Every structure is written in C-alpha cells, then in structure tokens.
C-alpha cells in the first residue's frame, strides 16, 4: 500500500490556497497522506523523511512564471540530500491568471529536476484562477479536478489535468477586479488608491 507525502511550497503556506488544495486532495485520497509546509528550516528533515513514501505531491503557486524561490531552494537541498528510496513526484500548481497553461514552464522545471535526479514523474494538475476559485460558485471545477488528481495518484494511473473558472477572459477580468477591489476595501484602500501609477512614491 502506498503513502503520499504532501509538501506545500507556498511562501505563505499556513494561510495559502495551496493548503486548501492539499486538504481537498487529502479528503479525496484513498490512501494515507501526510502533510507538511516547506519552511526555511525543515528542508533536511523533509528530504530524509521522503524515503518512507511511495509518492510525493508538491503543491505550490506560480511565482513570476516559475517556482517560488523558497521552493526552488528546497529542491536544491533535495538534490544534495536525496532520500534512499525515491518516491514518484506529482504536482498541483495554481496560478492567479485564468489560463492553466501559464503554469506549464514551472511544470517543465519540475520535470527537468526529476529527470536529472532520477525521480519518476507522476500526475500533474495545473489550476488557473487559483487565487479566488475556491471562494466562487466555480469551486466545483477545482474540487473535481483535485479529486481526479487524488484518484490518479492513489491508483498509480498517473495523468495530467487542467482546471479553471469556466469564464471568458473578459468576464474573468471583471470578476477578478471586483474581487481585488473588495480585498482592498478590507484594508481601507479605495480602488483609485490601488490604481496608483506611482511606485515607491
């Protein structure tokens, strides 16, 4: 029987969307999962612990079109401290923009890491509109895709999945801009203030 280690590579892991995605994954997963946030100080511990798992799932956001730097640093540590038994690597990546394909380069970076370090690549889920989708009526699209991901990893029928809000680009911009205006309002910041063109000024 396999066992899945879920590692959250979000810089704000304890309050991240990635954490919520990991929880949904664990809920639908038929085999045991163990969850950890990647922090600045636990890299070695996580690398050593990986040996006991058949699979690892990296859950992380897209940052500047690639891997968040803290997660990149974790991979560098993992490269230098490989576990005795190497689990199959699956990925659940989410990005803020609508198009799940914007995550592709980051996935290719993980694939390169795996090839170089002799890990087998498992399933991939690329989520678009990941900043907000769980707070909208389109939550079902993310949940369905994460369930498919969880089943594929547990059954070892590895596959690639995509999901996002079923909205036109124009509608997405509209919805996202309302979301951000309300977000600013919570801090007493008006839309006009958020739209300032000045930088550090």
């Amino acid at each position, binding site marked *: 029987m396999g066992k899945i280690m879920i590692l959250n590579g*979000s*810089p*704000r892991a304890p309050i*991240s969307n990635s954490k919520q995605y990991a929880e949904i994954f664990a809920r639908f997963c038929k085999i045991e999962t163990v969850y950890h946030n990647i922090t600045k100080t636990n890299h070695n511990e996580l690398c050593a612990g990986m040996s006991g798992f058949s699979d690892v799932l990296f859950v992380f*956001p897209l*940052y*500047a*079109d*690639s*891997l*968040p*730097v*803290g997660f*990149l*640093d974790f*991979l*560098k540590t993992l490269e230098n401290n490989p576990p005795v038994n190497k689990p199959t690597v699956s990925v659940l990546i989410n990005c803020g*923009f*609508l*198009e799940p394909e*914007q995550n*592709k*380069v*980051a996935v*290719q*970076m*993980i694939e*390169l*890491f795996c090839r*170089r370090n002799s890990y087998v690549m498992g399933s991939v889920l690329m989520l678009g509109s990941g900043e907000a989708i769980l707070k909208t009526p389109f939550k079902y699209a993310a949940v369905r895709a994460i369930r498919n991901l969880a089943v594929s990893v547990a059954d070892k029928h590895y596959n690639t999945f995509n999901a996002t809000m079923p909205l036109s*680009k*124009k509608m*997405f*911009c509209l919805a*996202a*801009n309302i979301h*951000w205006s309300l*977000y*600013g309002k*919570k*801090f007493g*910041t008006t839309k006009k*203030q*958020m*739209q*300032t*063109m*000045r*930088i*550090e*000024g």
Partner: protein
Amino acid sequence: MKLILSDKPLEISTQLGERSAYFDLSSMKISNCVGCFGCWVKTPGRCVIRDDATMIYPCIAESDSVLYVSRIRYGGYDTVMKTMLERAIPVQQAFIRIHCNETHHVQRDVVPKRAVIVAYGAVDEEECDIFRRLVARNAYNMCFESYDIIFVVESMVNETVKQILDKWEKS
C-alpha cells in the same frame, strides 16, 4: 535609464554611462516575497518589507533597457535573481486586463523595455529551452518589448557583459 542587475559581482564600474545603474544583488539584503499582496491592497506601489529591494524595483520600472545576469537552475533563474524578480510585483496593480490574448496584471508606471539576459550555468540544451520559454512568458508580465538571451559559461560572464555595454554605449 539603463539597469544592470547581476547575481554576482561584475568588473564593469568604469564602463557605466550616465543614467545607468548597476546592482550586484549578491551583496544586497533582499528577503523573499511573502505573498501578502500588501503592495496591491495596503500600500499600493510599495512593498511592506523595507529592505534593499525597495531601491531596485523602481529602477526596473524606469528603465528602457535592462541587463540581467543570472545563474540558471532547473531552467529558471537561480535564487538570487529570482528573489529580486518576485519582489518586483509592486510595479503591477492587482487589477487584471487582457494582454496578448491572455489575462495579465495592469502595470503601473513601467517603461516598456529591451531586455538582455546573460544566463550562465545551464547544463544542457533542454535546460536552455525551458529558460527560453520562461523568458518568453516573463516578457508579458515584465514589459519586455524585445529580449535577447545569451547563454554563456560562467567564466565568460564579464567579457560578455562588457561587449553588451559597449553596444549600449554606441547605440
């Protein structure tokens, strides 16, 4: 303005013209973006982490030519440069628009720019290819009108940068 950002010290100080800035990121204090979005919703245009990055992202925004020098790791920028690029999101607004048929953030006062990227330490052609795709994606988010990527071995970095600066001087 012309901007040079490097993840290692460069031997170029005598070659810098007026309205140019050079930062050796490896000697600066720049911590990781924590993803708080403060620069969009609390203090728009200003990062809440008041370290050396706050000197650099306004320069990125102002420059019409940028030269980035970085080691490559797994087909992306290595830690030093990537840390700075993540800290540059105050130059964008939270708001989203359609740009080149994809959704992207609205930019604040960011000058469209020509970028040259000197990338060293790539192991093979596959890694170079991933990096090319990454920079093509960055171009949409970082206001690159055009860009050149020059892959070199680490020992050629200084020589390559000198040649690029010569070209900049003449243009």
